[in-house]
């Protein structure tokens, strides 16, 4: 349970930035 909490919290902290990187790449590609 503890590991699960740490895993979820870590994802909440880190993944938006990761997703954003890909999303921005996609938008840039579309713009190009």
């Amino acid at each position: 349970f503890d590991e699960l909490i740490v895993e979820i919290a870590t994802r909440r902290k880190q993944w938006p930035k990761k997703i954003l990187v890909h999303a921005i790449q996609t938008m840039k590609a579309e713009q190009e």
Partner: protein
Amino acid sequence: GRAQVFATVVNTFLEKLVTAGSYQRFASCYRCFYKLQPQLTRSIYDQFISQLQASIKEEIQEVKNEGNLEGLFSSLDKIVEEAKDQEEPAWRPSGIPEEDICSTMLPYLLKHRSHLCRALREKEEQNTKVAESVLMGRDRIAELQQLIQARQQAWQ
């Protein structure tokens, strides 16, 4: 700050633990040994207490280093300080990542939208110009056809 509170609370814990485990209590539990060796009992107790305190302090320091607690506490103090004017409860993750990610994406999507609007407007303006020249071209062709027709009729 949090670091200060943390240290104070741990020290208080230690003090109270030592107070609870007093020499009287120690000597009364080890009565048989105490009767035989009272001085030694006292020095064993003193060593016991100092060893326990040293180990616990060392452990606390290790936990602080491991978790970088000092740094985290001070940055959390700052974050809390910055939010002191905030009355109502702040946002918290909803538990639905797809929804929570919306705000993260929004500023970039808005930028993307304005880029698309600008590109579309430029394209429309450009096309308007090209359309005008196409219309002019059509008129020119119609004119040429009429001219040719007139000349041809004349010849005819």
